[in-house]
């Protein structure tokens, strides 16, 4: 069994406490980091091949190095705890079970980018995780691990916890920043990029909960160690959220080189009732769907990209033969229409439009030109928007229709416009 990093303490009922975290070696990495050059910390994280685990998969060390070295402006570290990608629940577990790993990861990242103020943006619906994480932050302050002159290092760092209020788009990096600033969660046009001009106009790094939770381990045991656990282009293990038609849905920590087949059948017990696998969403609803023939793919960023989909948030949704794919697309299209922030025209208009079409198809009023309309509208909108939200919608729009076209056509033929 591969080594557990993120979930190593999950068997303990008190894993969220400072005491338990310290017992298992917690808050030693931060001391080490305070003795390192900022650039050395960044180098170690680069060496680890740590890729962003929120959805975009961007190399974390490279992201940190975008902060201008000569800037005297205050720099902010923002944690994206606005988990919202359908099929994903890993950050919820991390906030509730291992909050101190996030805090320690924040401290190390802050030291690396010279930030003294961190914001943790927790989605508004996550009330229990917010309470647990808030208590952990209080513990850290009480123990002198946050605030002024941490552990006598001369380094100051404060954490402000900011609750969201219900909007998936606030999980988009700059949508989150707009929301943090007290506005609607409208993503910002780039340039300028957040590392140059982010929260409140200052250099900002936004990292996912899980990404930062890996950092203390990387500092303690070295980037090379972390890199070696994974694939050639992505280091470490990651948390796969598996749900849908599997015997054992839940969180699975595995090396990123694990295949989808292994995840579904070895880790999660396969499909209940002996039914056949029909389709899998491999990386949250924004990832293109895979058919049952396509599950021998390694679940790292590059592996899934080469398979025409994406690793995204590692939210794995398994569908068996009983599932109506047109209905599933309608549910997903409804989600994107509901969550579109409405700022830019292609996304605002076409998410609503495509949802109406899928709804009509499912209701038995589909027309034969509807499928080509969905595909053409999606392809025309892709790449034209302010942020990648729409590209995330396009993933399912195109892949469901292209890979299961016959099923859609049959539904249309059996409807009243046949």
């Amino acid at each position: 069994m591969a080594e557990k990093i993120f979930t190593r303490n999950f068997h303990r009922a008190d894993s969220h406490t400072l005491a338990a975290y310290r017992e298992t070696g917690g808050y030693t990495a931060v001391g080490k980091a305070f003795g390192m050059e900022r650039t050395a910390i960044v180098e170690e994280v680069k060496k680890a091949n740590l890729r962003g685990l929120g959805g975009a998969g961007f190399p974390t060390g490279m992201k940190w190095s975008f902060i201008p070295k000569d800037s005297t402006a205050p720099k902010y570290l923002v944690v994206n705890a606005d988990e919202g990608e359908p099929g994903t629940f890993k950050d919820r577990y991390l906030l509730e079970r291992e909050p101190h790993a996030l805090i320690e990861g924040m401290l190390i990242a802050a030291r690396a980018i010279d930030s003294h103020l961190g914001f943790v943006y927790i989605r508004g619906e996550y009330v229990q995780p917010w309470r647990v994480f808030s208590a952990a932050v209080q513990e850290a302050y009480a123990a002198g691990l946050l605030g002024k002159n941490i552990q006598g290092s001369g380094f100051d760092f404060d954490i402000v916890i900011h609750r969201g209020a219900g909007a998936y788009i606030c999980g988009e990096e700059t949508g989150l920043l707009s929301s943090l600033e007290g506005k609607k969660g409208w993503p910002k046009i780039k340039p300028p990029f957040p590392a140059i001009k982010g929260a409140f106009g200052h250099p900002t790094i936004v990292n996912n909960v899980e990404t930062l939770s890996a950092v203390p381990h990387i500092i303690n045991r070295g980037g090379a160690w972390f890199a070696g656990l994974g694939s050639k282009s992505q280091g470490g293990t990651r948390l796969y959220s598996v749900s849908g038609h599997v015997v054992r849905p839940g969180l699975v920590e595995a090396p990123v080189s694990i295949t989808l087949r292994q995840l579904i059948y070895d880790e999660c017990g396969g499909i209940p009732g002996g039914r056949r696998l029909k389709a899998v969403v491999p990386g949250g609803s924004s990832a293109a769907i895979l058919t049952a023939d396509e599950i021998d793919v390694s679940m790292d960023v590059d592996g899934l990209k080469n398979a025409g989909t994406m690793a995204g948030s590692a939210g794995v949704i398994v569908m068996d033969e009983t599932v109506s794919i047109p209905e599933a697309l309608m549910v997903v299209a409804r989600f994107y229409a509901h969550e579109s922030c409405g700022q830019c025209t292609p996304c605002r208009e076409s998410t609503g439009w495509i949802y109406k079409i899928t709804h009509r198809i499912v209701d038995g009023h589909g027309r034969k030109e509807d499928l080509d309309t969905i595909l053409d509208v999606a392809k025309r909108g892709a790449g034209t928007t302010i942020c990648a939200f729409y590209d995330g919608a396009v993933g399912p729009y195109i892949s469901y229709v292209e890979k299961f076209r016959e099923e859609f056509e049959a539904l249309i033929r059996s409807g009243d416009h046949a």
Partner: protein
Amino acid sequence: MADPRRPEFTAEQLAEVRRLQSLYPEARGALLPVLHLAQDAWGYISLEAEAYVAGLFDLSPAHVHEVVTFYTMFFQRPKGRHVVAVCHNLSCHLMGAKTIVDHLRQRLGVDVGETTADGRVTLLTVECLCACEAAPMMQVDDRYEVLLTAEKCDRILEGLR
């Protein structure tokens, strides 16, 4: 509970507003936390509350209204004493969310988006709450209720006063 049509924070609440505003590089960053405070204090966020909060932030009421109408957790009309929000996104849909929603509609005698006549429960459908491993599920006030069945729903409803 204070009158939502004549909203005014207590001295203590105002102190909390100022404290929250001081945490951010620009006071406006505290708008969402303060709107949560307002909703907790007055049950929902009326137009009067929006204008009042706008005054605390030196913002135009239109810009506070933008924020309140953008986020799903802010209620602009009175809600029930309890909010039952059933997830109807993909994993929950696969695991029977529709059945749960229909059962709740029937039990409560309301449609989605409505509140029971006795003001006890507001029923909503929402997008992914990220508890997919325990689908179908719903959020009842502050807590998640998971692995729902019709019977479990009935027990939960019974516990809501």
